[in-house]
């Protein structure tokens, strides 16, 4: 069984994002970038399925600038077998990525596509769902446990108020939640091997996909600064403020 793991290069989670002076976007110039943490969990889950003898090959994919190669090498150092870079300098939106992934899924014919439930930069949480729809495959999103038996995946997913368990037939799309696993650290021998593993580059046009943005970003702004708190005299005063000032109850 082959697993396809899409990984996104995003601003490192330790970095405090800054908005560009013209309010057009987050400033990424000379900012440390890293693999989307939810995608790290997806790579880890794929590796565990391979180590359990369920998967035979793990292929990682990234879409975007040439620098996404670094992210792919990171995934290869974690144990993935080979990598595909869909290279473009166009700003990619979830639908475009889902279409690119569809084209690759048709080519590669994986039994399972595992990816992060969302990326920490735009928080869209759309790519996995759109890919499943485009492929006509079942989807199990926000997974906190994945078991693959007899051509089916049993997926526990986090929902409001608890866990829901779904059984989906393969091929399917699974997106990962935080509690699915704890990603490993790369080993030195694997870091050294990663350099020699195959990484092919294709262009969106090679896949016949138009990646032009459909959405326009009007404005990006920092969240409003939190105002200083105030002490209230008693519960009645608190309820009054919540009702009449904050108007939340």
């Amino acid at each position, binding site marked *: 069984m082959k697993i396809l793991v899409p990984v996104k290069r995003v601003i490192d989670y*330790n970095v405090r994002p800054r908005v560009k002076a013209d309010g057009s976007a987050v400033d990424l110039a*000379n900012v440390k970038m890293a693999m989307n943490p939810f995608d790290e969990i997806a790579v880890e889950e794929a590796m565990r399925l391979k180590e359990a003898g369920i998967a035979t090959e793990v292929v990682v994919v990234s879409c975007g600038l040439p620098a996404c190669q*670094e992210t792919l*090498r*990171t995934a290869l*150092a974690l144990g993935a077998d080979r990598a595909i870079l869909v290279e473009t300098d166009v700003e990619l939106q979830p639908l475009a990525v889902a279409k690119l992934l569809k084209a690759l899924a048709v080519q590669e014919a994986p039994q399972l596509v595992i990816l992060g439930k969302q990326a920490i930069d735009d928080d869209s949480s759309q790519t996995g769902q759109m890919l499943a729809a485009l492929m006509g495959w079942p989807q199990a999103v926000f997974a906190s446990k994945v078991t693959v038996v007899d051509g089916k995946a049993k997926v526990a997913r986090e929902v409001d108020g608890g866990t829901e368990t779904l059984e989906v037939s393969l091929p399917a799309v699974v997106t990962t939640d935080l509690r699915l696993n704890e990603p490993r*650290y*790369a*080993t*030195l*021998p694997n*870091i*050294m091997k*990663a*350099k020699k593993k195959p990484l092919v580059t294709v262009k969106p046009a090679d896949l016949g996909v138009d990646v032009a943005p459909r959405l326009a970003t009007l404005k990006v702004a920092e969240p409003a600064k939190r105002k200083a708190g105030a002490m209230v005299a008693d519960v009645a005063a608190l309820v009054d403020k919540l009702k009449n000032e904050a108007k939340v109850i």
Partner: protein
Amino acid sequence: MSNYAAPIRDMQFVMKELAGLDRVAALPGYEEASPDLVDAILEEAGKFAGGVLAPLNFSGDQEGSRWQDGAVTTPAGFKDAYQQFVDNGWPALACDPEYGGQGLPRLVSMVVREMWKASNMAFSLCPMLTQGAIEALALAGSDELKQTFLPNMVSGHWTGTMNLTEPGAGSDLAAVRSRAEPQADGTYKIFGQKIFITWGEHDVAENIVHLVLARTPTAPAGVKGISLFVVPKFMVNADGGLGERNDAWCASIEHKLGIHASPTAVMVFGDHGGATGYLVGEENRGLEYMFIMMNEARIAVGLEGVAISDRAYQQALAYAKDRIQGKDMRVRGGGDVPIIRHPDVRRMLMMMKSQIEAMRALAYVVASALDHAHASPDANDRARNQAFSDLMIPVVKGWCTENANDITSLGVQVHGGMGFIEETGAAQHYRDARITAIYEGTTGIQALDLIGRKIARENGATVKAVIAEMSALDAKLAAQEGADFATIRKALAEGVAAVSACVDFILANFAKEAALVAAGSVPFLKLMGVVSGGWQMARAALAADALLKEGSGDPAFYRAKIATSRFYADHVMPQAAGLARTMLEGGESVLALEEAQF
């Protein structure tokens, strides 16, 4: 408690722009060390250091290693962390591929080791001592010894120790009294007591390979009668598995000022009939082997000074950005501000930052020279680099560790009263740093090595070549525009003149009045460090300026590098003139008093 984020940006800059990573990667055997692989290694090692080792630093200090009935229990989490360290293949990084190593250059291993040391100094001492034992065995051991011990030491499944010091033999190893009695089967029975044995007993690995200095019955007195032996904790069977427990026992561990998680053992050999030992190399040449190995151990401890300083800086910086106190002097009627806005707090942070960057640059440049000294195909190039690193190793060791004491102290000072409180964590770095200027040869020992073996003995040939190289930078600095470079140039010229005057003084006086020269040897070592650091910071400023003009990379980082170099020229380099005056004129007053007058 504090986090550690490896300063990968500065590490890469120093490796590429100052230490010549590309030239190291061009040496035969080091072809693998391409920039993209090195970047990936730094990235992943940084994650391991920050994610696994750093969180155990504070708890390890609080809990400490404990001894009971000859066994040592390391603090919670250390055993698992060590297992992960081994599983992930880190011990093998710079080792010989013949024994399972990855064969990467010292320059790369130096940078990765800085991360281990900064994230958890007490932990890092275990692989560091193992590395030293591997080098000694690889250098002088028989093929049989190497085959028996090296693969498991390279992988990290077994750890190593260095058993040199005895109660009566510290800095002067000629006084070693441990005995080795030859047996009919070619092995030896070892008897004696060793102290200060770092990671001499522990629970993180299944076997410990002790390297022990001892005398055979026929050995001549003094340093020429000391031999080196391998004494494993558990004997190794013919099939490579572990056999009987050897007669090498840990009698206790020390209660120390710092590095509490690192067990410092008192080792007793032969209390129950004799510990089985195997001779390494030839009889009576033990100290010679040790000294070759010790060169690399000394630069590793110098690096420890860089690492612990950087950890203290990261912690102080985070606090200075977070702690709100007082108003900004430049803003009238403004609100309370983080203390990093106050000029003296900034000065302290800049003192830390600028000296750390200078120390890191010098340490990596010397590591790169060691790679050339080992692997260059050209004999002249090998000899030149060996001479340069021989000269600079006592400087890196002595200067970086003495500075580490000052820098970690500043780290406490930035915190104010909170720095004096153990829970804050700044005090731990200050306590941990203290040993670095003592072990592997105190600063005084380094300074004697510098003026005697490294300068006077060869009539100053290498140090004069280094002075010439520093002076050659003057023309490049003169060609630059602006006040920053003018200041850097003037400071370097004054520093080089100070070093030059002291070298002339050493060469003129060492033969006839060695004590007078030795009295100023530590100020001279510091002078060499300050000026060598200024030399590297000047090179860094030139490289940063060139990259700025080229328009590649991160302009904010390059501008900060130039400003930091300027700060070093203003605040650190002026020490050079004072240190030189002390060296040139201060010897007599050191020696003036009779002992009774103290």
